[in-house]
């Protein structure tokens, strides 16, 4: 037995361990469901709010690292292209898997605590920062109906949770037992608290207009034409919010907390391994969430810029009967052959298998496009999520673009800018909006 085990390769060992385990688990699960299924379902139905919340949090936590990977890759590639470099191009097609590999590398690295650090605070700091960023996504409406929790104080909740990350950064800076970390932590505290104020005040005018704090309602207000977006009613508020959001997300030109040429890596100097990875992910999730909030508040969220003509393709595949099965069997083969034919016929040097692969890929692209098109027309949330993601990633691009262009601002200029320019400007914006409401309302 042990000799047979020893001969197995590593994947073999993994499979031979997992298969019996899965078998036992699934049998147990079936028994549990059969016995307690009805009662459990009742409990779940009775507490649907809590269940919905837990499921949403789990999904957001699971989706957070991949979205961070996408933004990290975007940042690497876009800044590289602006620098006239090629950027990542080795791992995966056009280097797309590089950030994933970075994530795995960070997981595998040693995770040490420096001598003199406050172990408990040091360990909890990245978790607080990461959770603070992810929790913000709970109230963001990704599409009609696709919102984790439609709070009636959604915006307030967002700012409250976003403010938590200051605590995490301060914890990291204080507990690291390093003066660079301390400077970084204190800088981040000063910066984020200062910029919370214009960030919040710039939105107050919009709240007066919208009359609600629920982000879902705010988005629904901004339709159906793009002229209804709040950016046209609150241009100053939009600019102030954009600048303050850049500072809140610690992005260039306000990335003083991790200014590598001044204080080595700021609060993250002493961190390594996955604890550093949490900081890293949190930063990029912050970018995503700040862009998402910007889009939600000012640019119509998941609303399309103009209403599409009503179009519904009524598909009822079930009515085709047996022909559906035949179609599923035949159409891909025929389409692949048809699409492969030009590759094979028009260039005599192409081998037949390459032509077949090209035809198959082309068929897949077309099929995915057709499915997406039908889904876009038939399902509101698909259209919504496409528009939402498109707008959000456009703003992520702008954040990255700014990072590729602008140098860093100094700490006194940063504070002066917040208190002397942004705060008065947001107050002016608030007064003007209120006055306009009063005048128009009367």
């Amino acid at each position, binding site marked *: 037995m042990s000799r047979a085990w020893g001969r197995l390769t590593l994947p073999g060992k993994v499979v031979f361990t997992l298969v019996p385990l899965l078998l036992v688990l699934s049998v147990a699960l079936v028994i549990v469901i059969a016995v307690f299924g009805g009662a459990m379902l009742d409990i779940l139905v009775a507490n649907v709010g809590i269940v919905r919340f837990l499921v949403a949090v789990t999904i957001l936590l699971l989706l957070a690292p991949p979205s961070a990977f996408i933004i990290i890759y975007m940042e690497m590639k876009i800044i590289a292209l602006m620098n*006239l470099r090629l950027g990542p191009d080795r791992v995966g097609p056009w280097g797309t898997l590089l950030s994933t590999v970075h994530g795995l590398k960070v997981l595998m690295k040693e995770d040490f605590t420096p001598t003199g650090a406050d172990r408990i605070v040091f360990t909890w700091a990245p978790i607080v920062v990461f959770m603070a960023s992810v929790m913000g996504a709970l109230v963001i409406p990704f599409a009609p109906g696709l919102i984790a929790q439609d709070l009636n104080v959604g915006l307030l909740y967002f700012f409250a949770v976003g403010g938590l990350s200051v605590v995490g950064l301060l914890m990291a800076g204080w507990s690291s037992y390093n*003066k660079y970390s301390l400077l970084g932590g204190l800088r981040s505290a000063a910066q984020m608290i200062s910029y919370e104020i214009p960030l919040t005040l710039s939105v107050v005018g919009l709240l007066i207009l919208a009359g609600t704090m629920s982000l879902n309602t705010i988005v629904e207000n901004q339709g159906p034409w793009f002229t209804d977006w709040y950016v046209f009613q609150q241009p100053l508020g939009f600019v102030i919010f954009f600048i303050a959001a850049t500072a809140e997300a610690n992005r*260039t*030109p306000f990335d003083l907390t991790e200014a590598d040429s001044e204080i080595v890596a700021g609060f993250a100097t002493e961190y390594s391994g996955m604890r550093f990875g949490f900081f890293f992910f949190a930063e990029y999730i912050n970018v995503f969430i700040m862009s998402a909030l910007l889009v939600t508040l000012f640019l119509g969220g998941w609303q399309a810029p103009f209403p599409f003509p009503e179009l519904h393709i009524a598909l009822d595949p079930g009515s085709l009967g047996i022909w559906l099965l035949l179609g599923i069997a035949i159409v891909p083969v025929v389409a692949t052959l048809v699409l492969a034919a030009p590759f094979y016929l028009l260039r005599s040097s192409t081998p037949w298998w390459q032509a077949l692969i090209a035809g198959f890929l082309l068929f897949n692209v077309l099929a995915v496009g057709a499915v997406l098109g039908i889904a876009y027309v038939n399902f509101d949330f698909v259209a919504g999520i496409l528009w939402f993601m498109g707008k959000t990633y456009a703003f992520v691009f702008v954040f990255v673009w700014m990072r*590729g262009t602008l140098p860093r*601002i100094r700490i006194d200029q940063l504070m002066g800018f917040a208190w002397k320019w942004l705060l008065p400007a947001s107050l002016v914006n608030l007064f003007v909006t209120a006055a306009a409401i009063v005048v128009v309302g009367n």
Partner: protein
Amino acid sequence: MTTDTRRPSADDPRVLLDEEIGVYEQIPPYPPRTEREAEFYTLGDGQMFINMGPQHPSTHGVLRVVLKLDGEKVVDIDPVLGYLHRGVEKLCENADYHQAICYTDPLEYISSLFCEWSPVIAFEKLLDVEVPRRAEYIRVLSAELNRIASHALFMGWFALDLGGLTPILWSFIERDEIVEMLAALTGQRMLFNYFRIGGVNGDLNHEFMSRLGFWMSRATQQIESNLTLLNENELFVRRARGLGTIDSATALRMCMTGPNLRATGLPFDVRRAHPYSIYPELDFDIPTRTEGDVLARYLLRMDEIKQSLRIIDQCLHQMPDGPIMARLPRLLRPRPGRAYAAIEGPRGQYSTYAISDGTDQPFRMRIHDPSFIHLQSVGLLMPGNLVADTMAVMASLDPIMGGVDK
């Protein structure tokens, strides 16, 4: 018992910071060796030390700076040198005259040709050699190319220290093209070892000329376009203006030369003040600025790039034919005597003082390096600034640690 071993003994003056883990205050050398050290390593109320370097990301090599901070404000500064000391002067005294040039090459590794040039001129003075005119033209041509490479790199590092990611790569593109064409001329990319006593190592070749022509056709436009990224950027200009200001009297007192002195308004340039090589025949301006701050030093270097392009253009048009090496014996034995040669490097006056005792090795060779001289003024410039600006001020002086530590 175990805790007792971690405690300092009665006569150990170190400060025990944390009894639990046994961490001691590391920085002060105790007892202080000089009065200045005693003053510096005494902390006032609310002050702390921070140790930048030698492995800090932006100390331009292996400089270590101990900053005394009050919050984010720099109160005092103690630069610690010598991490890159190789004893180049002594090495040169144990090598013969040809070999000494090779040792001076990596001093300021960004602008190697200038490091060769001044000892070469000093040795030529010792030997009383007439350098062929074509060789002088080639020297000026290649050296001005190297000056552009050095200044372009300065722009990149300076922007990087202020937090800009992109200019460093754009300036590296320019530098790389220059370095590649110099490799076609000299055979090496970084430590060229091209100037010889009495001439240069090789004549201009087709590869170099074609690369140079291609680069010159687009250099002005490309550099101008690169500069718009920083010169017009409000963030950059606001940070750099009025920072690290030094007036011309103080600059003279601190022995500053080169762009750092010219940024205070004094048009002192060795190429005009004490002409050497063929510079008297060439037509170029000496840009000056009066502000004397970080921005002026940066803009002045960018102006110098344009003047260097002018010089290169003139060199190409006036290049005479002829030999590139004077006829010299292989083993050089100058008569006993002494010689001093100063040139205008990208960082300032770079000079060599050589004494010959009649053997084939220099009896004494002293190298005056502008980086080292300029670094002494950080003590004047930095106090009162913020931590974020220490690196900007230091970068604006453009020291190269290879030259500082020699």
